[in-house]
């Protein structure tokens, strides 16, 4: 046996840090259309290689190529484009509002719009999304009221969550959008439980769970895969790999020398690794996974390869930990630009129409913001009555909360609150 050599401790480092040039050489990008498309009833063991490939439909000229090319009519594509652009404009508007002090916090999904938008439009009404805080695109694609979303961000009097939750922690049962949790990962196993319930009842709705690549290290990720496999739950488990988890790159989450899609292999769950900035690939992969789920072939894991173009949140400053040119050097480009290019390439869109769309949506978003601000913002303090904080802890308010609310009211009357 080899003689005892001192051991070394290794801490993975990203390919580039502030000051360096962006370096994505760790991310091989195969030709669009080069990955095969198996039947939806394929054995997981026969498609392990797909966990290491990268499904892409749109090539550099904006042409849709290969077996994964979903036939989608131009109207549906324009619908997707519209939702993506609207999401980006919405994000920018809310960022400004936060800068203006109208809310305490905001998170954008810039560069990742295709994933949530595509899935919202591909899945059926009644299927349930268990989102992270970066799937606002789902709500917008489902035409959910911007005013309603903004009222949540402003924590104002019309906020259906009564100002209890931090901004962007939306909840909309009507839009098939599960209440966002501030605790990472928890929704992933909940999505599996929801899907198990649908199967137990012999219903038809499936679930779609989301998690960031960083949060895959949490226990809930492992539980989700174990339960989804054991009970063959009708669920799509989406891993959004946007390369960063606040300041830590995907290697800290255990991405070095492997992929996050590959985590599924050991659980015998079929895994697709997909270009998350390719709207057509998003539709195609989602369709494949949902057909598996609906056909009782069980769960599918999809790793969406994308890039977090903006700061993690308004509390974050990425220039402290990553090169400033990463977004412009990102090999998979901008999902909006790519879909736009495709629509133009097939003669279904033009720069003029695009400019017009942006202008329309900008007006729509500004109008919505004006209306929402009319119901108050954190700045002007027009928020839900303080007594409402005692509601919904339980369905019926127990004695101790009735007492505490009464004390709070006394304090309020005696001017002892808020100081």
């Amino acid at each position: 046996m080899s003689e005892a050599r001192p051991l070394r401790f290794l801490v993975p480092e990203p390919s580039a840090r502030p000051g360096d040039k962006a370096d994505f050489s760790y991310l091989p990008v195969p030709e669009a259309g080069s990955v095969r498309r198996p039947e939806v009833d394929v054995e997981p063991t026969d498609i392990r290689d797909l966990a290491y490939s990268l499904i892409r439909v749109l090539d550099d000229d904006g042409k849709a190529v290969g077996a994964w090319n979903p036939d989608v009519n131009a109207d549906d594509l324009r619908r997707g484009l519209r939702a993506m652009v609207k999401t980006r404009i919405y994000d920018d508007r809310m960022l400004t509002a936060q800068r203006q002090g109208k809310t305490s916090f905001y998170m954008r999904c810039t560069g990742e719009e295709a994933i949530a938008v595509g899935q919202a439009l591909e899945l059926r009404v009644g299927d349930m999304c268990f989102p992270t805080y970066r799937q606002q695109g789902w709500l917008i694609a489902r035409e959910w009221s911007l005013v309603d979303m903004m009222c949540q961000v402003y924590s104002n009097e019309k906020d259906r969550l009564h100002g209890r939750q931090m901004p962007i922690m939306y909840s909309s049962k009507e839009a098939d959008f599960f209440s966002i949790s501030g605790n990472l990962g928890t929704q992933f196993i909940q999505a599996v439980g929801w899907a198990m319930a649908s199967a137990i009842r012999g219903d038809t709705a499936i679930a779609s769970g989301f998690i960031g690549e960083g949060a895959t290290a949490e226990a809930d990720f492992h539980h989700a895969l174990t339960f989804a496999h054991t009970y063959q739950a009708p669920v799509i488990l989406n891993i959004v790999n946007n390369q960063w988890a606040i300041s830590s790159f995907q290697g800290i989450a255990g991405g070095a020398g492997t992929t996050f899609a590959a985590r599924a292999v050991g659980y015998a769950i079929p895994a697709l690794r997909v270009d998350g900035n390719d709207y057509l690939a998003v539709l195609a992969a989602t369709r494949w996974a949902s057909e598996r789920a609906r056909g009782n072939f069980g769960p599918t894991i999809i790793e969406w390869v994308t890039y977090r173009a903006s700061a993690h949140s308004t509390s974050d400053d990425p220039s402290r930990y990553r090169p400033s040119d990463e977004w412009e050097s990102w090999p998979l480009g901008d999902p909006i630009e790519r879909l736009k290019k495709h629509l133009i390439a097939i003669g279904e869109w033009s720069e003029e129409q695009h400019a017009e769309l942006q202008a329309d949506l900008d007006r729509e978003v500004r109008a919505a913001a004006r209306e929402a601000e009319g119901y108050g913002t954190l700045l002007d303090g027009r928020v839900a009555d303080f007594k409402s904080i005692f509601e919904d802890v339980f369905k019926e308010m127990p004695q101790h909360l009735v007492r505490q609310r009464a004390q709070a009211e006394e304090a309020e009357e005696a001017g002892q609150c808020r100081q």
Partner: protein
Amino acid sequence: MPAMTLSGAVRSALDVMLERDDSVVVFGEDVGYFGGVFRCTDGLQKKYGAERVFDAPIAEGGIIGAAIGMAAYGLRPVPEIQFADYVYPGLDQLISEAARLRYRSGAEFTAPLTVRMPCGGGIHGGQTHSQSPEGIFTHVCGLKTVMPSNPYDAKGLLIASIEDDDPVIFLEPKRLYTGPFDGHHDRPAVPWSNHPLGEVPEGHYQIPLASAAVRRAGEEVTVLAYGTMVYVAEAAANESGVDAEIIDLRTIWPLDLDTIEQSVRKTGRCVIVHEATRTSGFGAELSASVQESCFYHLEAPIERVTGWDTPYPHAQEWDYFPGPSRVAAALKRVMAA
């Protein structure tokens, strides 16, 4: 009425609820084909099928997380945690999710699950098969915590918990599964069949949550107890000759403070008994609450008789267990005060 053990009463409650409500599902480690390590789900898979009663992977966090998803869908899951000592991997899902879901979603999504788990010592289980973590749950707003002390209550409280629209932690004192136990481990075990509260109706009935029961009327001291400690307190009262009024909380939180206040205002003295470790155990909250609401009626310091602030030892189990003589001594002390 048939005589049932406490485990039998739990099984009967699950049977009744599986029968009348399609949305009830029961799952956990070894609960399916095998029927549970304490037999509380014996025969239920055979009767209702594996879609309703099934085994789960060994992952308490996964069990509770999946149950929350099921509950959000509209089911009423009744997961079992094999021992309360193993609930900790599931605490994040309980605290951050089950307890918060109604609140944070403005009541759009709710988590009506009932998490069953055996608790307490007395079976030589050592530090990982004897714990009583109820104190932790009571600190989490949004959770209800229940602990029955007899078969009749166990069935009625479990049915009420399953039918409750909020998450409930249902703790089953494992030492009581087969019979009442007053801490005299050196005496022959008594079966439930000899005990009036071992008589349990076959069908559906509820014991409302948040309502305590006076087990023994008395004038001199109020004893607050739950689970196994109810019998320890009864033995202590009888052996000490102190005329104690013994209140069985049944639901630990939300608390039936009215019943407690009435009694303490009458007796002017209060002894609190629980098996869990002392510091920041639920006895602390009981002592603080009683002191706040009955200060001017108190004639003696409120005493707590509890497990020591150590892990539950295996060989010295009976040195740790707060038995009748330790409780009796406390009763005499508060009378002498």
